[in-house]
């Protein structure tokens, strides 16, 4: 297995350039998929026999929920790589995932409760998925709080990396324990949304939007990571060349 691409990818100037070229691609593809998904979801997909048009909130709720978990996993992976191979670029990527991950978690929570309102009659119902999202939001806030409390970037990177790894190990346990807790007190919630059983006309827009959100996430993380890489970069030579001509 030839690992040079891994180490080359880890070198800041190289990463800065690659990220620069990838961002427009991700951004445009995300916009394309998002738009197609929106048109499909809001326009073409038939109303649900049970929830009428109210179910269309899933086209934003489900991608946001998926993204919130994926962002944490991406953050933890980048943190792990940064900690093990001492790669500043990986820490830069991890730092870039936190804010957007937390915002998606918040989005998933609000859209979830908005979707729940017509179904359950209340804005907040201790639905296991929403409760897990809430706990994950606290994990994000803890991560960002720890990063904010440490001034030295190198130390903040490593300490938050340990927290991200501990968090990612706990996420499935928290998810399981919340499901377990919920199944004890009430029967399964009436909102059992089995995705696969959706007809293709409903499912395709959802998959498109999910892909759009993932590409959007990648683009935003790379934009932030380019900045974070500069903050962590010590020898000024390549920065002067690169920033001399404002890209």
């Amino acid at each position, binding site marked *: 297995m030839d690992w040079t691409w891994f180490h080359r990818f880890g070198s800041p100037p190289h990463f800065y350039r690659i990220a620069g070229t990838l961002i427009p691609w991700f951004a445009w593809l995300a916009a394309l998929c998002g738009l197609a998904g929106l048109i499909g979801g809001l326009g073409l997909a038939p109303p649900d026999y049970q929830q009428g048009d109210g179910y269309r909130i899933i086209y934003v709720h489900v991608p946001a929920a998926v993204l919130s978990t994926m962002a944490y996993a991406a953050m933890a992976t980048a943190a792990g790589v940064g*900690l093990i191979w001492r790669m500043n670029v990986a820490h830069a990527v991890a730092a870039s995932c936190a804010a957007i991950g937390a915002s998606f978690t918040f989005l998933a929570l609000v859209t979830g409760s908005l979707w729940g309102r017509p179904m359950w009659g209340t804005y907040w119902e201790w639905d296991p998925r929403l409760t897990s999202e809430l*706990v*994950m939001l*606290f*994990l994000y*806030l*803890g991560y960002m*709080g*720890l990063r904010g*409390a*440490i001034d*030295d970037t*190198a*130390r903040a990177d*490593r*300490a938050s990396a*340990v*927290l991200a*790894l*501990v*968090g990612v*190990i*706990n996420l499935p*346990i*928290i998810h*399981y*324990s*919340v499901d*377990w*807790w919920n199944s*004890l007190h009430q029967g399964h919630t009436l909102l059992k949304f089995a995705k696969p059983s959706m007809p293709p006309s409903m499912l395709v827009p959802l998959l498109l939007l999910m892909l759009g959100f993932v590409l959007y996430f990648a683009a935003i993380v790379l934009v932030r990571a380019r900045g974070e890489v500069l903050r962590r970069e010590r020898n000024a030579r390549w920065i002067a060349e690169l920033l001399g001509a404002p890209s």
Partner: protein
Amino acid sequence: MKVPSAAVVSPGKAGWRLVQRDLRLGFRRPGEWLQPLVFFLVVTTLFPLATSPELSRLRDMAPGALWVAALLSSLLALELLFREDGQDGTLEQLAVSGLPLPWLLLAKTCVHWLLTGLPLVLAGPLVATALGAPYASIPGVFAALLLGSSALSLIGAVGAALTLGLRRGGVLLALLVLPLAVPVLIFGARATSLAMAQDPMTAPMYLLGAIAVLSATLAPLAAAAAVRISLE
């Protein structure tokens, strides 16, 4: 080349000596590690005052009150774990001692649990009966708290190591540890409520035991990494 004349101590014995040191320190300052216990008693007495004196109404709230109070007091006790050793430089000595740091931190966490966790476990059944739990449920409540408080101390150790040396680490420590302690809270409270209803509580106890074992193996590794980072 200079070679030490005295025999080198094995990690196991070094860990035991560290336990002796911390126990001796603990007995020299009993006030410090009794405070979490007092806090636990105060918080659990607030619940009846906040709701109603009738035992019947207190009973279904007792497990929740007991475990939230146990969680908060073990959180408060975490200040005692690394802060002083970090300030006076002894933690630094452990980091460069050539002894396995995770093992030493596990030893320290065990002593911390003995001094601050065990009193909660002993007081737990007492408080439970005060909140309307039948006497027969005492062993169950005791067992659940025993497993749960040890898991809390271990998970808390990681949080304490991460916030070591930070100016306002207290609130941040709570924000870091509480989400990680959610599973312990859920299974612990469930086990306690089953105990109080004299139903079989094996399911939550198994899960609680699993978390305690997982914490005992992984938390010291994470805490050691976090301590080394905090000492930078």
